[in-house]
């Protein structure tokens, strides 16, 4: 790949690997993220999302492959990479014994900002995140949602070109999750920066430009969220029965592979015409307690990938 193309890419990873002893956390991952994109990295627990982010953020060394972030190699030019990125970790990076302003001053000085610039951005960002009246409060006295918001402000204070958000809303309740997303949307609208997100809440990934599903450190699927959902199926057919084990095995010859959860089996259905489903319902009669179909969503894509059926 030539230099010009590299500079348009915020992140370019090829064959990225991370091994911890015998465990392979990331297994030859290829990732291209254009500048300005809102990119979601999804996958089950332990699929290698955080290891990937930490390699891209130069905090751990790849065991193999290579990666460039903002055009700099993550191993050879680690310091330059760190100058271009912001990272919000899964867990807080704040000092609870300092106030909100003192934390941001500390973070800003660590990025060699002048005290005047720090004051300016502190006011601006706290205002944007609705924390303006908390400036001199000790961080220890803030609620979980406020601390998370402050942690994102902390990761933004130096105006990074690329922001890594590692499960930014983990452990937060719905109203707090929503407000964190409003902040992130505002930030993106204002700065046009690249955002790489990992999350477990798939509805949050709906607004991504592109998402990549990884499992066992390998890329399974990637594309715009709508396309991934379309690619999965036209409908998800859910069949409920007391004898779902035997029934779903029989139906598999007609409907293909299925996911089983308790007394419910899910099948993918790729035709727009659902009359065969209504017919099937009639045929099965009392063998089933319910048969319904609905449009798939990202959660379905996630489940089918997590179960290894895609």
């Amino acid at each position, binding site marked *: 790949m030539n230099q010009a193309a590299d500079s348009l890419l915020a992140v370019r990873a090829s064959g990225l690997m991370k091994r911890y002893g015998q465990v392979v956390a990331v297994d030859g991952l290829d990732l291209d993220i254009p500048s300005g994109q809102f990119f979601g990295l999804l996958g089950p627990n332990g699929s290698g999302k955080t290891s990937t982010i930490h390699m891209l953020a130069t*905090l751990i060394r790849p065991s193999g492959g290579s990666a460039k972030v903002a055009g700099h190699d993550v191993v050879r030019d680690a310091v330059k990479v760190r100058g271009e*990125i912001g990272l919000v970790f899964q*867990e807080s990076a704040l000092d609870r014994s300092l106030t909100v302003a003192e934390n941001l001053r500390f973070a800003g000085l*660590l*990025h*060699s900002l002048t005290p005047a610039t720090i004051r300016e951005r502190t006011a601006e960002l706290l205002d944007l995140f609705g924390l303006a009246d908390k400036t001199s409060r000790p961080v220890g006295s803030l609620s979980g949602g406020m601390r998370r918001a402050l942690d994102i402000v902390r990761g933004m204070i130096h105006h990074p070109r690329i922001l890594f958000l590692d499960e930014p809303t983990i452990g937060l309740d719905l109203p707090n999750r929503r407000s964190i997303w409003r902040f992130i949307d505002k930030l993106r609208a204002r700065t046009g920066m690249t955002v790489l997100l990992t999350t477990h809440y798939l509805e949050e990934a709906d607004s991504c430009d592109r998402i990549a599903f990884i499992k066992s450190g390998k890329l399974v699927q990637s594309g715009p969220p709508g396309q991934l959902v379309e690619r999965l199926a036209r409908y998800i057919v859910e069949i409920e029965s007391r004898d779902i084990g035997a029934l779903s095995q029989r139906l598999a010859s007609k409907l293909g592979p299925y996911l089983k959860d308790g007394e419910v089996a899910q099948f993918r259905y790729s035709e727009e015409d659902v009359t065969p489903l209504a017919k099937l319902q009639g045929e099965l009669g009392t063998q089933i307690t319910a048969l319904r179909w609905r449009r798939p969503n990202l959660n379905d894509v996630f489940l089918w990938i997590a179960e290894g059926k895609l």
Partner: protein
Amino acid sequence: MPWRPLYAVLEREVVRMFRQRTRLVAAMVRPLIWLFVIGAGFGAVLGRASGLSYQQFLVPGVLGMTMLFGAMLAALTVVYDKESGVMRMLIIAPFAHFWIVIGKMLAAALAAILQALLLLIVLALLGYLGGETHFGTLVIGLIATSLACAGIGMLVAAFTRTLDNFAAIMNFVIFPVFFLSGSLYPVNQLPALLRAVALSNPYTYGVDLLKHATLGVRTSGMGADFPLAMDLAILAGFTLAALMVASWRFSRESAYEPMIHILTGKRGS
């Protein structure tokens, strides 16, 4: 050289030190207890040697003690930072990771010097700083000793994963370093084995520098034990070595890997 980040680390240390009042009060009370309780007790038994009371002999020792404890506690905030997550702010900042070690070491030394200065004011008010004090030597002694103590602290911090074993650090590092130095007795009058241990303790030479500043060299043997240049050379050498070992240790991922493992859900692997 990242000046502002360095300043940030120092500023945070000072702010935290003055905010943790009990830590500061303890740093003042601990040496005074030694001076007045232990000093008076042993002083009554030992009497005066060539016009020097045992309490006066203890002054450089307790000054050194303040710096040893102050620097150790400040250096161990590295472990606190690893546990609490503040280290994340430092490792993601755009400078080489060995600067974190340099910054933390300077911050620990600064905390030690500030505490020693506070104690010096108290000692001066109580009349324990006589006219024979060499202030130039004292300044050098404070700087060199605080840096060496910070070095000991950084070595411990670089190899410590949690503050759970803080009591062990107290018992197996801080107390031996303090007792096996010339703080409480002249090194040259110790039995051979203890003397050998004291001679291999870098802190001994810090206390000796402070003896040069406050007691001078005395024919009674109650003053400084070694030449001033030797003290300085050993302290400088040790500080540099400690800085290099701690930086080497920290530049490996393993120094903050416990945290990375917590983040990636691979704790203990």
